[in-house]
């Protein structure tokens, strides 16, 4: 056996703390070590070539690199080892940056000592490494997209256009998401409905997309290339004979606040969500329909000329097999009732920004639903950047949409007094600063100070805002006709539901966690599952669309070749040692181990395609028959020995 050891300086990150000379000297003393080198940047071309050439020149068969975390550059070096013709699994990394020089920079001697131990640990493991090779598996071209806001729509269209088979699942009765509710979009002020509705229409027109609305994913099992999905299609109680003539609606006696209109108008129990809904078909809201609750009424059924109402519709389960999954479940606006000082829910003149979006649409269409009033104040950062309510993050959109809404109001009626009370005004996107300036020019007053409280005069309904203008250092106590809360984003119930079904990791704010914040922003820790849009974190429409296309292309990257490589670090059973006890079968989360009779003996067998390599079965096996490749019992023991300074024999 010939091992090469490579020590990285990381441009001083390591070498300023760890004594590289001492470290290489100690490595040279270790058995089977043939070459020891150090370099300023092992991950650079020069560093990598060093390894490549040494493997060839010195016939090295094991490689140890002492550098940063294997999570950071593990793959870089595995690729180079593989390129040199070796198995990538004869490579080990000693993490002497994150584990030594950084967390112990005040104690260079102890850090150096620790680095030596970590190199010994890596060597101990390397000596026992097997020459494993990656297996390839076939993969198809089927994608599940969960959520059909602008993110899900964009991803589905990209994939459909590229010839992939898309199943788009939306929990609401229509696709479109939050964007469908907006008036205009910053910073260009395109009409949201005008730019969104053609895209929505493209979805059912695309032959590669199958759309499930009013549906949720109920269960997802399996793995990349082999996901099994159960979709729960909820009843709409209106079948596809419906021509959307609207006759039923007029006869429905129920009136409830219209959620799409943020309660500004009412709708019936049988309704279409909005004018450009896709699919454009009526449905019955079962929690409000009198017939479905009490068995009385049935007006709609009586009047429908197409016999489209069907009270007997039942939920349907649809089973699908897909190869990859994209999660685009978006966000919910922050529930402003949680922020009691602003009086939302009790003061009728305190509304959310989303309601203001709808009011502006209504104004523009000449069907105003309520008075806006002369004096309007926006309160920023409601539900964001607020540790009192537990949300530390900035929602990234509210500064700009307030800039938008305030100037739309002001431009429509220059006599209005429009104020925006902000904490910091964040205008970092392309064209944003220019847009902010335009609002200032329009006459919107921006006041730097977070509003402390809002109180209502119970007689007049006018609302008083108390805040400090932190620039003028004056206390402002001023009356307004309307207060608009610039509510932030929260991950929302839909995103939580999808995350639970798919067992996804969440970031601290509760949004879905990406595999790497810089380099894998739309990948997740679940192989073959991607995220995009506001499910991943707060963002505006351009960023959402960019991520959606990125998620589609990352999914295509996996599926396009028709095969993909599987990590060989699966479990394997030594049949001679196996007693057939079945312990491993019971612990495997993937049902990847089964027992079978072989030569009259019950033995366990691992399905390498299903095994994800957690090693739980190997840990559980009472007879040492189950072993996980690359993490064999003897390897773990050797590593422990080395870590504790045991002399190797």
């Amino acid at each position, binding site marked *: 056996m010939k091992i090469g050891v490579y020590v990285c300086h990381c441009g001083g990150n390591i070498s300023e703390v760890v004594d590289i000379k001492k470290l290489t000297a100690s490595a040279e003393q270790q058995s089977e070590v043939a070459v020891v080198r150090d370099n300023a940047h092992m991950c650079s071309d020069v560093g990598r070539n060093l390894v490549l050439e040494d493997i060839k020149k010195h016939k090295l068969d094991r490689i140890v690199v002492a550098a940063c975390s294997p999570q950071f550059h593990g793959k870089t070096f595995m690729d180079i080892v593989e390129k040199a013709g070796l198995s990538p699994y004869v490579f080990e990394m000693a993490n002497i940056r994150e584990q030594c020089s950084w967390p112990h920079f005040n104690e260079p001697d102890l850090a150096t000592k620790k680095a030596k131990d970590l190199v010994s640990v890596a060597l101990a493991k390397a000596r026992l490494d097997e020459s494993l090779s990656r297996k390839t598996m076939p993969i198809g071209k089927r994608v599940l997209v969960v959520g059909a806001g602008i993110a899900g729509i964009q991803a589905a269209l990209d994939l459909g256009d590229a010839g992939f088979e898309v199943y788009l699942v939306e929990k609401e009765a229509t696709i479109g998401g939050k964007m469908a509710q907006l008036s205009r979009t910053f910073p260009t002020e395109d009409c949201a409905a005008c730019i969104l509705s053609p895209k929505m229409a493209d979805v059912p027109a695309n032959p590669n997309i199958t759309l499930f609305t009013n549906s949720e994913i109920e269960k997802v099992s399996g793995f990349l290339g082999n996901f099994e999905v159960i979709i729960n299609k909820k009843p709409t109680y209106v079948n596809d004979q419906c021509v959307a003539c609207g006759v039923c609606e007029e006869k429905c006696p129920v009136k409830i606040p219209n959620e799409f209109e943020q309660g500004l108008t009412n709708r019936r129990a049988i309704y279409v969500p909005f004018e450009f809904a896709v699919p454009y078909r009526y449905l019955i809201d079962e929690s409000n329909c009198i017939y479905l609750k009490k068995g009385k009424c049935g007006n709609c059924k009586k009047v429908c000329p197409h016999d489209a109402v069907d009270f007997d519709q039942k939920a349907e389960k649809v089973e699908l097999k897909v190869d990859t999954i994209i999660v685009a479940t978006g966000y919910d606006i922050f529930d402003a009732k949680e922020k009691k000082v602003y009086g939302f829910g009790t003061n009728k003149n305190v509304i959310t920004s989303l309601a203001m979006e709808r009011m502006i649409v209504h104004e523009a269409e000449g069907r105003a639903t309520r008075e806006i009033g002369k004096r309007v104040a926006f309160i920023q950062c409601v539900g964001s950047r607020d540790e009192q309510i537990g949300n530390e993050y900035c929602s990234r959109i509210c500064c700009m949409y307030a800039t938008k809404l305030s100037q739309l109001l002001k431009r429509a009626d220059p006599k209005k007094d429009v104020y925006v009370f902000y904490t910091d005004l964040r205008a970092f996107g392309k064209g944003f600063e220019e847009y902010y300036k335009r609002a200032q020019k329009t006459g919107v007053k921006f006041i730097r100070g977070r509003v402390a409280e809002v109180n209502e005069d119970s007689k007049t309904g006018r609302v008083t805002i108390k805040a400090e203008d932190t620039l003028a250092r004056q206390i402002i106590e001023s009356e307004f006709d309307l207060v608009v809360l610039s509510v932030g984003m929260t991950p929302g119930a839909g995103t939580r539901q999808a995350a639970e079904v798919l067992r996804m990791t969440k970031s601290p704010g509760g949004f879905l966690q990406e595999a790497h914040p810089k380099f894998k922003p739309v990948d997740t820790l679940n192989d073959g599952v991607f995220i995009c849009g506001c499910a991943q974190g707060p963002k505006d429409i351009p960023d959402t669309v960019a991520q959606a296309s990125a998620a589609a292309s990352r999914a295509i990257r996996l599926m396009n070749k028709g095969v993909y490589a599987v990590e060989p670090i699966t479990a394997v059973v030594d049949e001679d040692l196996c007693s057939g006890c079945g312990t491993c079968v019971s612990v495997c989360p993937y049902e990847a181990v089964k027992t079978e009779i072989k030569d009259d003996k019950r033995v366990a067998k691992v399905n390498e395609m299903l095994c994800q390599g957690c090693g739980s079965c190997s840990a*559980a096996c009472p007879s040492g028959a189950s072993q996980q490749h690359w993490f064999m019992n003897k390897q773990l023991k050797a590593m422990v020995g080395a870590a504790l300074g045991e002399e190797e024999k």
Partner: protein
Amino acid sequence: MKTNTEPKIVAFCCNWCSYAGADAAGTSRLQMKPHFRVIRAMCSSRIDPELILDTLKKGAWGVLVAGCHPGDCHYVTGNYRTQKRIALLKNLLTELGIAPQRVRLEWISANEGGKFQKVINEFIDEMTSLGPLQLPGRPTAKEAS
């Protein structure tokens, strides 16, 4: 770590959460006592009780097993398995006259660098006050009390 005067801690970390959490601690330059050695496994459930006992036998003063928070395990339920196994192991340790706190289980996620630091420093302090483990069946004075 050859002499028995300085604490020796082995920390088994799962690849997805706690190893990344340890990295996060390092990346944030959070300073820790250097007397621990991290060994990475794919899942905390790979760490069997026998390996932990072996680690104590080989001279570790304490063993930390760290995994993803319940519900966040990359392998769905691996960490629940770990939790059960460690609970059983602690009973066994008590029977053997070894202080059960020598084996510690923690949930540390990829972004909890601060927690990793706190756990490591606390654990090292605790083990320092317990002192080295004397095997077999000869607990230190503190352990016996």
